[in-house]
């Protein structure tokens, strides 16, 4: 048993292991000051909700309040470990500024306390009036990546089934839309091919725009433990920042933002040229290889090098590492997903594994990662606009199946066009054709690009804005009605992480005041709207979490994301089960696509795909002709320069991103003192050469500008690529004197541009031209953490560390003896 500083040492003590061995257990726990383990009343089962890793954990409850957390030794995802957000983030539940009653606008336009009857009455009245006047196209729903499957399924049933609007999306659009789209393009269907346990077997792990050390810290601990053990894997890192991943990598490529597609074509060019290719696999299991060969002919390393600003020799070295790997695991995240040509570039990673035949075997696979904890459920259940259960909106038989399941008319479910993504919904609100927007558990007034525009749209009088949240966010400040929501720990439901692991999260404590679960709120709305199915029965027919889960199981049965073999009881017995879990796979499924079998048959696939450049959906007949046997699809694309490039006035490329200590817009993590102190204020990262050129010293206050706005941030001089700036996107305005942020200079999205990937519709947060100038001298170093990618070059910056309240107990144990 040991003790560590949960802030200063985010990845904990090493427990080295070798290839093919089981990752050792290390149980991390943290209890509130003054609470001893034997004073805990109950431990309640859940999993992490502040990132996509899905760490299994128990919540400690004493006197009806949360008092701490403990990792689950028996969980397949984390083997007991917890990261800083898992350890300290739960304190937000106990925050004194939780929303506890509904709020509505009074006659003077002020938000005042109200009752559920009054607040819901206003929403219902407006909904009915708009449905009468314009129809379903007047209503839109924008949800989250933090709710439970039961809630997303309910929202999908209400929006797509009962109301029949095509305007449903989740904030997963900002983080994992490209993961979903890239999987649909290559495999005909969403669904993570690989598994975290592939880290145990891989000999090469390539991370493409994936700062795993901060976005999935416990998975990174697993990689670190492999690196510390015998026969470690070699890492390839593609990232313009000097991340912890970059420092651990055998090869680090730092391409200029916006040039991923050129780099991928260069890597594939080398792999094909050297014939590091599994021709049998390609012939038996794929279509489209010839097109790829032809496309990458134009991308020799000498041509790619000046585009990406990466030496040709490095591109060759990286290609050799990838090409000669025996067990190749590739992972992808925001560095690709939020950048120019997002889907096209992410698809090339799939292509890499396909042409090398590295799929569906231990250590060989692709992880198209998620950013948010329950993003997978947003996608599966249809709350991101896709049809429930990975059904294909362009396949009438799938729509008919869903209509039968819901016992409604087929024409009620919108399937005349792709679902409306959030940026398009915003446009409809802007031009006045979408008149009610219901935002749940997310904060677009900080997280969407070009905030001046976002605020002006959400703040319009003619838009009826409903915000359902646990806190009074920047978005809530603009709302007409605010509904107080119960959160994780205060309600029961299931959610699924980035490697398809389903966890049950049980209610540990009561929500504060009158707060209600999102499930209860939507079902209440459905009852007040008096939605009915074809037989006049109330719709949706379920009434609480477990019956909603049973309904969702039926909706998923026979689809790739099959939950039919799961139950709450089973999830109470096993900590984490990977779907598909059904009669054939009662214990779940570790890897998809073993033996080269895909979900891509024309009658079964979730999507017919899109043109990677134009985003135009393929017609069913085109897909059928291209891929009659349902093989994997190799799709090629050319490199296009970004839509916004550096100029004399804006000579830098600005990228935004995360730090390990915060989640999304800090709604929760900013209210956990340890996390807040670790990264209390926005900063900007700049290279030493650029800082010297501009006369900027560590800690100086700078102004970062783009044509859209400006942000004031203190400079951290670090190992980021020259001519690139980085801003964390977490910082908004709720904890400032201007909580709506009307004149704000703090949120990174004041600067980002309104542009999105045509295929995945994911907004681009990593391709904006910017300028930076020094405003005033700093009175000390920048508030950026020193433990992570923002580590300073100078040595006179004090280390980020915790205090007496950040102690974490580490206990090494095997699962059998780990009990408690």
């Amino acid at each position: 048993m040991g003790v560590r500083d949960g802030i200063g040492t985010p990845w904990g003590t090493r427990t080295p292991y070798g290839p093919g061995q089981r990752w050792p257990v290390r149980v991390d726990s943290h209890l509130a000051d003054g609470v001893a383990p034997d004073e805990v009343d109950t431990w309640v089962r859940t999993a992490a909700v502040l990132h996509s890793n899905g760490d299994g954990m128990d919540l400690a409850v004493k006197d009806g309040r949360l008092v701490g957390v403990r990792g689950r030794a028996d969980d397949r995802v984390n083997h007991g470990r917890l990261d800083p957000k898992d350890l300290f983030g739960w304190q937000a539940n106990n925050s004194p500024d939780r929303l506890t009653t509904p709020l509505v606008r009074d006659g003077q336009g002020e938000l005042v306390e109200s009752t559920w009857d009054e607040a819901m009455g206003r929403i219902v009245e407006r909904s009915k009036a708009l449905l009468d006047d314009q129809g379903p196209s007047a209503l839109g729903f924008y949800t989250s990546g933090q709710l439970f499957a039961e809630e997303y399924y309910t929202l999908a049933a209400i929006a797509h089934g009962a109301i029949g609007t095509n305007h449903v999306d989740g904030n997963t659009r900002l983080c994992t839309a490209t993961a979903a789209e890239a999987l649909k393009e290559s495999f005909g269907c969403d669904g993570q091919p690989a598994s975290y346990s592939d880290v145990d077997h891989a000999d090469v792990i390539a991370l493409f725009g994936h700062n795993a050390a901060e976005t999935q810290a416990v998975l990174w601990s697993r990689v670190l433990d492999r690196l510390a053990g015998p026969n470690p894997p070699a890492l390839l890192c593609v990232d313009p920042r000097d991340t912890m991943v970059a420092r651990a990598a055998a090869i680090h490529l730092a391409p200029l933002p916006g040039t991923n597609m050129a780099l991928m074509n260069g890597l594939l060019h080398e792999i094909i040229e050297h014939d590091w290719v599994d021709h049998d696999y390609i012939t038996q299991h794929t279509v489209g290889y010839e097109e790829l060969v032809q496309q990458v002919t134009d991308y020799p390393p000498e041509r790619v090098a000046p585009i990406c600003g990466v030496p040709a020799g490095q591109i060759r070295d990286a290609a050799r590492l990838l090409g000669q790997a025996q067990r190749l695991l590739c992972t992808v995240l925001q560095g690709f997903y939020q950048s120019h040509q997002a889907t096209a570039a992410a698809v090339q990673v799939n292509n890499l594994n396909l042409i090398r035949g590295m799929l569906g075997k231990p250590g060989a696979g692709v992880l198209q990662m998620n950013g948010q904890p329950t993003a997978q459920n947003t996608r599966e259940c249809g709350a991101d606009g896709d049809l429930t259960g990975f059904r294909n909106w362009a396949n009438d038989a799938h729509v008919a199946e869903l209509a039968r399941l819901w016992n409604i008319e087929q024409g009620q479910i919108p399937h005349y066009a792709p679902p409306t993504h959030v940026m398009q919904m915003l446009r409809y609100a802007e031009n006045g054709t979408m008149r009610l927007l219901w935002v749940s558990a997310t904060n677009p007034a900080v997280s969407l690009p070009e905030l001046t525009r976002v605020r002006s749209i959400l703040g319009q009088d003619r838009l009826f804005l409903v915000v359902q949240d646990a806190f009074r966010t920047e978005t809530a400040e603009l709302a007409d009605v605010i509904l107080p929501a119960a959160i994780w720990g205060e309600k029961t439901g299931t959610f699924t992480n980035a490697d398809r692991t389903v966890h049950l999260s049980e209610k540990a404590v009561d929500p504060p005041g009158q707060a209600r679960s999102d499930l209860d709120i939507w079902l209440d709305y459905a009852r007040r709207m008096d939605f009915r199915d074809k037989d006049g029965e109330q719709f949706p027919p379920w009434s609480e979490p477990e019956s909603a889960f049973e309904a969702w199981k039926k909706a998923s049965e026979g689809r790739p994301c099959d939950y039919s073999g799961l139950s709450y009881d089973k999830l109470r017995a096993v900590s984490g089960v990977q779907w598909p879990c059904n009669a054939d796979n009662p214990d779940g499924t570790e890897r998809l696509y073993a033996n080269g079998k895909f979900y891509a048959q024309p009658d079964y696939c979730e999507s017919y795909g899109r043109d990677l450049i134009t985003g135009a959906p393929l017609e069913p007949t085109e897909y059928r002709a291209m891929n009659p046997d349902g093989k994997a699809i190799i799709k090629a694309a050319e490199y296009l320069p970004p839509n916004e490039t550096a100029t004399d006035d804006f000579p830098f490329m600005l990228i935004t991103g995360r730090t390990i200590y915060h989640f999304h817009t800090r709604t929760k993590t900013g209210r956990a003192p340890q996390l807040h102190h670790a990264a209390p204020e926005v900063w900007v990262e700049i290279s030493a050469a650029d800082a010297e050129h501009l006369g900027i010293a560590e800690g100086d206050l700078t102004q970062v500008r783009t044509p859209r706005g400006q942000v004031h941030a203190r400079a951290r001089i670090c190992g980021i690529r020259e001519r690139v700036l980085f801003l964390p996107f977490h910082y908004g305005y709720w904890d400032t004197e201007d909580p709506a942020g009307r004149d704000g200079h703090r949120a990174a999205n004041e600067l980002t541009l309104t542009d999105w990937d045509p295929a995945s519709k994911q907004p681009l947060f990593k391709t904006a031209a910017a300028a930076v100038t020094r405003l005033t001298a700093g009175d000390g170093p920048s508030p950026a953490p020193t433990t992570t990618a923002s580590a300073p070059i100078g040595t006179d910056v004090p280390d980020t560390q915790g205090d007496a309240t950040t102690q974490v107990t580490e206990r090494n144990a095997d699962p059998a003896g780990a009990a408690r």
Partner: protein
Amino acid sequence: MKLGLALRELHRSEKSLAKDLLKVSDRHKAEHEIHHVARNLAAWSADHIRGLATAARRYDVELDADVPESSGPLASIRTAISALSSSRPEPGLLLLADLRRLHRKAAGVSLDWELLAQGAQAAKDTELVELTRRCHPQTLRQMKWTNAMLKTLSPQIIAS
């Protein structure tokens, strides 16, 4: 031999399409996807124009390789009007009309490529056949894009 004529006609229609794509891009700056993708598609047409100009030399036809880089002297007025009217629904119908026109124009270009490809094959001009193989699929993708955007955006515009 009328290949020169076919080249000249295709060059004219590609140039007109490129210019119209830029015009639509400017006129609908508030529709961000239209604005950006239309410019990328105009770049395809520009590439085609350069290829045609090179090919035409072998047939003693003088075609300029200049490609439109903006929609003309009114470009800034077009984008300004789009920005000013971004909060109004009316430009929606104009957008549908523009997409419809672009689609028809791209269909014309596609037919011109078809004619050129047939003629090039009959004349056994392999270089020209190769040019049509490279360019024509992109014209078809321009058509599919206009069709797809029309299909995606029209329900809201018409039903609201």
